[in-house]
């Protein structure tokens, strides 16, 4: 439990030195289905979506983008308020439950109201293409 708290907001120095912080791979909620390559136990992801539900008792949030939704476990987040209808971005690790339902255990969260989601999705495609080209050029 204490270790999990360290993963959250107050990252401990010695712990940080020993463990590299993984980058949250950029993914849209619509891409997060069981057949997707992103849908892996423990995958570090960054997701963006509109807050649909938030339960104070469990600290579970549900964000949506288009027709896709994802549960977010926000128990390790501090200094963040939850407003239904606001757009949030979370970085964390994906936990796939036995019933194949996924929940993101967030270690970072922020409000991104005002984000242009169309621009974001288009830029993400360009970014992926650039990364793929770069990788191809460096291996060839």
């Amino acid at each position, binding site marked *: 439990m204490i270790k999990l708290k360290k993963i959250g907001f107050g990252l*401990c120095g010695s712990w940080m030195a020993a463990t590299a*912080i993984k980058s949250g791979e950029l993914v849209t909620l619509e891409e997060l289905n069981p057949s997707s390559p992103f849908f892996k136990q423990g995958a570090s992801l960054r997701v963006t979506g509109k807050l649909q539900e938030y339960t104070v008792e469990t600290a579970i949030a549900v964000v949506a983008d288009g027709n896709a939704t994802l549960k977010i476990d926000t128990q390790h987040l501090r200094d963040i308020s939850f407003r239904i209808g606001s757009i949030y971005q979370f970085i964390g690790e994906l936990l796939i439950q036995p019933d194949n339902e996924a929940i993101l255990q967030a270690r970072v969260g922020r409000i991104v109201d005002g984000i242009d989601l169309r621009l974001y999705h288009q830029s993400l495609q360009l970014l992926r293409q650039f990364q793929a080209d770069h990788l191809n050029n460096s291996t060839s």
Partner: protein
Amino acid sequence: MDQRLQNTHVKLLAFDLLSLTQTPTFSTSDPITFTRKNTTISRTEILGVVTSRELKPNKFLKFTVDDGTGCIPCILWLNHLTSPYFSRRNPASLKLISDMAAHFASEVRIGVVARVRGRIAGYRGAVQVTVSDVVVERDPNMEAFHWSDCIRLARNCYNVVGGAVERYRVERETPTCARKIGEKGKEEG
């Protein structure tokens, strides 16, 4: 090796920055040189979400910046008033630098989007940015703009600089007669 980007804060995505080629040198000020496609790079500008923070008061702030393509370790020194390294510097300017660094440290919090500029250094074999300044971005679209900037600059500027040097090197190293034969062959073909 092309030096034209030597004094520029090169805008790089994390995956690109973390894959720079490191070469040890005999210089004490810059013990490692970093190159990308035959171009020497010493400074960078990165932008991303702060995902970890470790503060040693009056010594340093270590933090990581995640831009979605990788996680970059950064160090912001806070020891300007105590380290002998700075003892020859003007006390008034040292105080200003120290206050500025303390201000940057207070701005760097987990979850903010930070634009970080600094010198590229190596620490335990990995790339690390020694921070010179930090700006916290409030506009949520700034990350997408930064990705576009990095892609555009890489394609139109950074890749071209190294490519031009590489072509120049090939031309210099290929004897003139061989080049002429090659060119003639091309014309005939």
